């Protein structure tokens, strides 16, 4: 099969999945509550997939992801607040366009902070990097918490009261395609010379440098790209919740996203999807015993460490093309590096 044929098959599969969701929604099988849960799962997929780039592929332990999401959330909300002041309304068609602009702005802002934090922090490795990123995440949150100034006639960021009164919304359709776009971009970056450079840093930084990979550049590039998509995830969260509570972006939120990555498999985007869905559904049932949620998460992780330490999918990717080839009996010898499939 040629590359473009493989891409078309995958795209066809995604469209079918989308139609299936639409039909289920039209039939009322997926009600408003369930589609809300799906949106939150979608946001978690974007956040966790972006963290997977930094942690799973680049191999750098980053524990400040919620910080980047917070920057994204406030940046996106800021743009939409300005839009509201200028007389736009949610019912205007142009708001979707504005939201796209706001999300890109959110990503760029988060990426800028990613670069600023990455340059000093990425000199460290392992646990030390984890501690520093954790610290930066907290600094961002606390700074926002205490920041409250008047700009263009409104209070930004609203401090502890939270930030509200901006335009924007998040429907299932929007998050579905956003997830697809983000995952596709991440996948395409990983399966390119840049992705190979990123993987080589995870495998052996000294060897990567010794074969001509500019490791410092790619570490910061990977970290900033990760922050970019975290910012977009944060923006989506802001649009969906219609108000931002700074208390949401704590260390525990970073850990929750980290758990999705670890559970799904470091270095597997499809694994991240599976883990985000499982934990998203689990979350809904655990609302009743909210204080036990993290205990159950930890138990889950311990069980996984014993039985499947590499995560649900390890570093494999589920691929529709690979599955079809398998079903058709053509034992796809993993000839192209793109055709890694589930065992």
């Amino acid at each position, binding site marked *: 099969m040629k590359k473009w044929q493989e891409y078309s098959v995958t795209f066809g599969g995604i469209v079918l999945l989308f139609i299936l969701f639409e039909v289920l929604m039209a039939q009322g099988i997926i009600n408003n509550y369930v589609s809300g849960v799906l949106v939150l799962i979608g946001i978690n997929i974007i956040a966790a997939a972006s963290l997977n780039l930094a942690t799973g592929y680049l191999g750098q332990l980053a524990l400040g992801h919620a910080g980047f999401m917070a920057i994204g959330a406030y940046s996106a909300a800021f743009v939409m607040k300005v839009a509201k002041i200028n007389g736009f309304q949610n019912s205007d068609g142009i708001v979707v366009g504005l939201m796209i602009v706001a999300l890109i702005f959110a990503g760029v802002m988060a990426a800028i902070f990613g670069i600023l934090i990455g340059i000093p922090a990425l000199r460290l490795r392992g646990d030390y990097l984890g501690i520093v990123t954790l610290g930066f995440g907290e600094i961002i949150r606390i700074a926002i918490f205490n920041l409250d100034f008047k700009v263009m006639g409104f209070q930004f960021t609203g401090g502890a009261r939270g930030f509200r009164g901006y335009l924007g919304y998040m429907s299932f359709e929007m998050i579905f395609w956003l997830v697809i776009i983000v995952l596709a971009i991440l996948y395409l970056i990983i399966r*390119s010379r840049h992705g190979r450079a990123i993987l080589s840093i995870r495998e052996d930084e000294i*060897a990567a440098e010794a*074969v001509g990979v500019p490791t410092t550049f790619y570490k910061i590039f990977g970290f900033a790209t990760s922050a970019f998509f975290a910012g977009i995830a944060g923006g989506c969260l802001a649009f969906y919740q219609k108000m931002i509570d700074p208390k949401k972006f704590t260390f525990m939120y970073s850990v929750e996203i980290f758990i999705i990555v670890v559970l799904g498999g470091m270095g597997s985007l499809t694994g991240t999807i599976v883990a985000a869905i499982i934990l998203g559904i689990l979350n809904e049932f655990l609302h009743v015993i909210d204080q036990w949620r993290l205990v159950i998460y930890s138990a889950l992780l311990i069980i996984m460490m014993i039985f499947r330490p590499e995560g649900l999918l390890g570093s494999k990717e589920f691929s529709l093309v690979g599955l079809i080839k398998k079903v058709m009996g053509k034992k796809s010898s993993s000839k192209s*590096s793109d055709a890694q499939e589930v065992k």
Partner: protein
Amino acid sequence: MALLETKNLGISFGGLKAVDEFEISIDNHELVGLIGPNGAGKTTIFNLLTGVYQPTQGDVLLGGESIIGLTPNQIVKKGLTRTFQNIRLFKTLTVLDNVKIAFHHKMTYGVSNSILRFPGTKYWKEEKQIEEKALELLALFNMEHQAYQLAQNLPYGEQRKLEIARALAAEPKLLLLDEPAAGMNPQETHELMENIHFIRNNFDVSILLIEHDMKLVMGICERLIVIDYGMIIAQGLPEEIRANKKVIGAYLGN
């Protein structure tokens, strides 16, 4: 003009002079051995040449151009690559990907091209090109049937071979081999010698190698440099070195 020239090269760690007054010159297409007792500073010299350490004195000229102050990856681009004493492969990547990564600096397509892969763009051209080149290189080393295996699943000798192939993929003018025969049995060492001969005859490359296996060193090197306590104590043909009093003294004690 010599391919590689060092002038009064030296480095000290605190008060310890690990390498001092190190002056060599390697011509195109030479095969030079660097030997010396344990702790003599051989690997330190490699680290100085490849930019891992910055020398505290002296200069390194590659093709007449100073490479002091460049980062290791910039030095690779100038045409100097190395292998490591303890094998450093990208273990959980395939053999083919290991080689492909070494072509990184030969490729030019940008991030936007890797996301927007329109037909006919540089991405497809370059990816196809390096896939062919990498397979060709692996075929030269009789490894093409292992191309899609994970590097960590290769036998020890093959891992060594892959590391050398990867270093050659970066198309160096000078290849530094740090104890390529370490941990090999006589059969594997013999194969390695053949491979080094083969590289010399088929690639336009000079080789500087560190080795403790005297059979290998005496068998293939055209010229030897002996160091002890960070200083050159003898240089010359293998036969001359074999008879040199200072060298025997350094290895066995006076």
